[in-house]
């Protein structure tokens, strides 16, 4: 016959949630279970905890999903490019460094002025696609813009993110109509600390 550990009322109360989530083991589990079996009020409390756990686990959560993964992949690739450049740097002459810097600058300029010519459907970085409504604009945010900053700005301008970030870091946004899209482009281009460039998307209506 096994001897159960002696637990105080408070200890049993503290361990009850772990009986509810089924993670208690061994003698501790037996002791708590024995206390529950002997007290109807503890049985009700256990049922309430199980019910609470069930409600919490059934709760739907709207996580970043594919958008989040695309953003991570973009940043990982950017880090790897940086690392590659740093590792290769000692073997290159200064001329090559200058050429590389010029190429990066050119790439950045192209990034800003890339036009999305995809029509009514935008390809998401995560591989899916979705129908986009309204008038679209293409925006390049500064590299250290956080998602919270981006989303807050989008909300204040009544814009919706319908695509991106692409591998180049471009977002496709949707405005309700041409007037609000043009106004948003003007306002976004005024936000130097957050936005590198904003343009109406050609054919993006």
């Amino acid at each position, binding site marked *: 016959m096994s001897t159960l550990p002696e637990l105080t009322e408070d200890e049993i109360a503290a361990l009850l949630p772990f009986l509810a989530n*089924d993670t208690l083991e061994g003698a501790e589990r037996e002791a708590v279970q024995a206390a529950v079996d002997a007290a109807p009020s503890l049985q009700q409390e256990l049922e309430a905890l199980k019910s609470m756990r069930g409600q919490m686990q059934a709760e739907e959560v709207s996580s970043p999903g594919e958008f989040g993964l695309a953003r991570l992949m973009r940043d990982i690739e950017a880090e790897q490019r940086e690392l590659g450049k740093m590792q290769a740097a000692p073997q290159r002459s200064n001329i090559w460094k200058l050429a590389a810097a010029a190429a990066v600058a050119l790439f950045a300029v192209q990034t800003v002025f890339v036009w999305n010519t995809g029509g009514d459907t935008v390809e998401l970085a995560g591989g899916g696609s979705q129908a986009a409504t309204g008038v679209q604009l293409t925006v390049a945010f500064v590299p250290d813009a956080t998602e919270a900053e981006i989303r807050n700005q989008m909300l204040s301008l009544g814009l919706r993110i319908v695509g991106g970030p692409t591998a180049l870091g471009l977002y496709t946004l949707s405005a309700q109509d041409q007037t609000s899209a043009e106004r948003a482009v003007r306002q976004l281009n005024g936000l130097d600390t957050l936005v590198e460039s904003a343009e109406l998307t050609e054919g993006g209506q």
Partner: protein
Amino acid sequence: MSATSANAELTFLLERMAGGDKAAFAAFYKAMEKPVYRFIVSRLNDPFESHDILHEVFMDIWRSAGKFEGRSAVKTWVFGIAYRKVMDNFRKHGRVDVRDEMPEQVDDSPDAGACLLASQQAEHVRFCLGELKDDHKQAISLAFYEDMSYGEIAEVAEVPEGTIKTRIFHAKKLLMRCLQARLGEAAI
């Protein structure tokens, strides 16, 4: 899938990530993104900021995949990273949580029957969880969203197991009291 085989699969993905395998990272993200996000958003209560913290957590996981030594379950290791990121965020914003402090002696026990009824309604549970202060909410979240043992929660929060038991004890009591009150309000 059992917890052991899920852990073996996540460990395998981490090993591949340590070698630079981005497909393994994508699989790891898909397996862990929702629970980690839920943990973060339950504490910050701000979806946009939570997106950024989640991003930082997974960047850290990618960068430090090779450092995982298998001394704890992968899930515990991941939630430990998320826990520290949230704490950093609280410190950055000077967030001090003073809600739900309770006196040392509590002589009124909540009515378990009323709590059981109220706990069957998601809105009551959500409301009462939101009323807890962060330490308590974190312990209950890991216990009930993630089904972690008190030992695992202690590992995540880097505190002794006794501290987690104390937090759970108080959190449970406050939740029960809140649920009972909610049921009383609904009946009026």
